[in-house]
């Protein structure tokens, strides 16, 4: 497949890359053709992004000697660690005990190090050029890092301001027009909707590109004039809405098709939908907050250990009936119960009498094996299994500590998509499927709406009471 733009010919510039237009392919193509001895530095934003890009590059058989892949922050940490004195960074910062404050400090130190020119020749000696992906997610500080690195390295950044939906807390995003396009002039825009063309739906893809322009200019989405791939699921605007949304989420999908269900931003509501849509699972935030919370609380020596465990099971699996189960275990142990203990209950009793990490694993296993029980939050449950396994293997390791390790590992591993995945635009960005269901388009701004609409390659279902959706 020929590429539209040759990245290797860009000395300094921005390429606008709308969703699904083959941005990753463009990068892979450049790295494949790159024949110079020095590798190209490829930076992106998240560890997940690095994992995804690495997987794609490996699939495209790009030799790993051609590139160095990292997150901007990861690279910044490496710079300041390698040259601590010139960065003027306090060693304590690098321990990242206080992520919120430490990352901005590290970014500041990194761009100052680059600005002051101490490692210019070293950069030039190490890398052939610099490519930065997902540039719309760059904070002002991260942009400064790239800006100063670009004083030495030929630099091409790729991004799409219409997909800028991340905010980095106190770290403001770089202004696309005033900073990014000023420092890296626009070289071109990708025009071919590859993702849709691949499945024979190029017209749908082209319509999305038009909508992108329209939304970018502040236009509204008119559900009366939509291509056949898009369905408007009308909502009456009353208590029936929920059932209709659930039905949309359950829309039929072919054997090899997958669906993404985009709910509002509240995790509780995402879980709720995942529970009620057969085969659906949630996508979790990278911090795996619920795993960490459970692990921090979970203590074998506590009298509440079983309760914590069973309640946790109830939070990640459907139909567990945690309260009933705990009551049953109490009466069984007291000899009051008439009915015999189920396998899960027996495992729970064994755990109470002789608490161990393997016994805890057995409790989760037997609960999961019960009929009617479905795991709708596999990322958290899998994390819990891994956490228990690590604790068992290394005595003395606290569950909280083990969970942090599990979390860091999971950042680097991409997961195959489930049949149906429920999440917010933030959580689903970067994922793509054949079918996409948008449950609450009226709550989205134009960028979120555009990102949401571009998640499905074949079919898009939009639940809305109104024909016109006019995002902020």
């Amino acid at each position, binding site marked *: 497949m020929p590429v539209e733009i040759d990245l290797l010919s860009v000395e300094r510039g921005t390429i606008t890359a709308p969703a699904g237009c083959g941005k990753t392919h463009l990068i892979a193509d450049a790295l494949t053709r790159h024949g110079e001895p020095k590798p190209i530095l490829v930076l992106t934003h998240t560890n997940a992004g690095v994992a995804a890009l690495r997987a794609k590059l490996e699939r495209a058989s790009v030799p790993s000697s051609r590139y160095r892949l990292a997150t901007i922050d990861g690279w910044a940490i490496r710079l300041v660690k390698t*040259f601590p*004195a010139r960065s003027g960074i306090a060693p304590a910062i690098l321990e990242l005990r206080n992520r919120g404050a430490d990352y901005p400090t590290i970014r500041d130190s990194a761009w100052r190090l680059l600005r002051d020119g*101490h490692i210019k*020749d070293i950069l030039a*000696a*190490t890398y052939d050029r610099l490519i930065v992906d997902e540039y719309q997610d760059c904070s002002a500080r991260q942009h400064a890092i790239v800006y100063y690195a670009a004083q030495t390295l030929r630099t091409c950044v790729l991004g799409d301001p219409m997909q800028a939906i991340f905010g980095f807390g106190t770290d403001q995003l770089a202004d696309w027009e005033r900073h990014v396009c000023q420092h890296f002039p626009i070289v071109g825009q990708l025009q071919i909707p590859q993702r849709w063309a691949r499945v024979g739906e190029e017209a749908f893809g082209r319509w999305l590109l038009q909508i992108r322009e329209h939304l970018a200019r502040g236009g509204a989405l008119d559900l009366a004039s939509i291509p056949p791939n898009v369905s408007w699921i009308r909502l009456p605007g009353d208590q029936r809405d929920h059932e209709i949304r659930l039905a949309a989420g359950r829309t039929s999908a072919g054997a090899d098709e997958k669906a993404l269900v985009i709910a509002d931003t509240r995790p509780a509501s995402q879980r709720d939908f995942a529970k009620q849509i057969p085969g659906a699972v949630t996508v979790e935030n990278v911090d795996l907050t619920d795993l960490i919370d459970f692990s921090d609380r979970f203590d074998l020596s506590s009298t509440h250990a079983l309760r914590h465990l069973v309640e946790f099971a109830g939070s990640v699996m459907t139909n567990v009936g945690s309260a009933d189960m705990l009551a049953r275990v109490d009466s069984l142990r007291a000899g009051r119960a008439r009915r015999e203990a189920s396998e899960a209950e027996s495992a729970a009793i064994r755990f109470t009498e002789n608490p161990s990490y393997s016994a805890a694993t057995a409790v989760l296993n037997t609960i999961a094996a019960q009929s009617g029980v479905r795991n709708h939050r596999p990322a958290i449950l899998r994390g819990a299994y891994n956490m228990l396994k690590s604790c068992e293997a290394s005595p003395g390791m606290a569950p909280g500590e083990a969970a942090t390790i599990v979390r860091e590992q999971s950042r680097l591993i991409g997961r195959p998509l489930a049949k149906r995945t429920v999440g917010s635009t933030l959580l689903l960005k970067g994922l793509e499927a054949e079918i996409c269901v948008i449950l609450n388009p009226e709550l989205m701004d134009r960028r979120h709406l555009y990102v949401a609409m571009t998640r499905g390659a074949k079919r898009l279902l939009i639940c809305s009471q109104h024909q016109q959706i006019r995002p902020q």
Partner: protein
Amino acid sequence: MARIRHISIENFRCIQKLEWYPAAGLNCLIGPGDSGKSSVLDAIDYCLGARRTVTITDADFYRLDVEKPISVTITIGELDDTLKSMDAYGFYLRSYRATTGAIEDEPEATAETVLTVNMKVGSDLETVWTLVSERAEAQGQSRYLTWADRTRLSPNRIGALADHNLAWRRGSVLNRLSEERADTSAALAKAARDARVAFGDAAEEQLGETLQIVTDTANVLGIPTGGKLKAMLDAHTVSFSGGTIALHDADGVPLRALGVESTRLLLAGLQRKAASEATVILIDELEYGLEPHRIIRLLGSLGAKETRPPLQAFITTHSPIALRELNGSQLVVLRKQDGAHRLHQVGTADDVQGTIRLYPEAFIANSVLVCEGASEVGLIRGLDLYLESTGYQSLNASGISLVDAKGVTNLYSRAKPFVALGYRVAVLRDDDRQPDPATETAFESAGYPAFRWRPGRALEDELFYSLPDAAIHSLLEKAVSYYDEFLIEAHLRSVTQQVLGLAECRGPVTPATRTAMATASKAKNNAWFKSVSSYEEIAREIIGPQLGHADPGFQEILNNVWAWMTSAS
């Protein structure tokens, strides 16, 4: 690529401590013998060479004290991209500022990016190479150059045994000239098989008896041999080690059969061609096996005359020709002072350059006696020859060099460079004319002796006023033999307003005849003894033997000079 910016050596052989910022091009180490010049070369070679081990013995430790580790630290600049790669050496890249010589642990915008390598040998005699970085150490990290980079940085040493460079062996300069390599394995395997065929049964005749015994024994023991054992060439043992491919001339004679001279010259030339790869060249005893004009050629091929030196060379020499050929910025005097080794760059100031061109030998000596003129030089040499004949040790053993300043006005400008370079220096002068008193006072108060004849006297005055009568007559006869009676007569008459002549002076020695001869002998245009050789002769034949009977004042001066010269070593 890659130049040594700084060298620090500790506890290695005779060097307790040495710090040096060598020049980017040619560095010619000069200095008295055993001052550690070759040890400096060895230190560079051991530290940067691509070797798995270095053979170090207790004798390589300073004063045999193995408790104080040998440490050689070399900072390298002009790094190529591979050596500056953050991936490989990020934690180890440092900075060097040429203007101040400061080396800091991290790169700096306005300074050069460098790597520092260290070789350490402790009492276990294990050699450990590491890259120096305080920040890496703080994080518990440690590493050394990759083998490939070590090979590239490895200095090329042109020693007496440079043969390996004339074959495609490991570390040979030939491998650095290009990437080409000959694949010999297939050809050698075939040759081995052919040899086996060609050799055939030849061994059977020579080893027939042994074969028979083995065959019989095998048969008796029932070991199957197929009836008859054969002696054949074992193709597997026909092996060729590295250096299978070597350079040969048109007639097929291996080039290693060339004389030392041509070999070294060719290698230096090749080294230069390979300079993009090879970095540092080490040559011990540059003049070894070379005719004078070839020394000049060799220096030329090392880039001695180029403004942008193609390679960094470290050489040692005792050759005055080499010294004369080089620029003061390429010459470095290595001296031991107050226990520590000091390196002084000779420098390019005019007086220094001139002094080097005129007296290259002096720079190889330990102590320098700057004499006002040829007469003092001849006097000292002659006296030395006389003393040697009576059983004293020659001044040569003390490493004394005599420099003829050619006049009192040049005396201190000649002495100055030697002082600056850390030599032991003294001056010896007449007192009929005085140098600038301030200069002399400064010289003396810095601890350098200024020997001079007694107030107002030139050497001739001292001789004719101080020596016993017999010596006076001998000197006069010597003068007559150099000139003739008529001329000497004329000299004497002219300085005594016709009062005294040759006949009177040949008669009894009186104060008047002494004065006449002293005055006549130093006449401006017709000095009786004016060359080094004539003074050498009178000193050996006349002054030396008669000195014991001379005026004590004169004796004392010479004794002082001698005491200074012989306490040199």
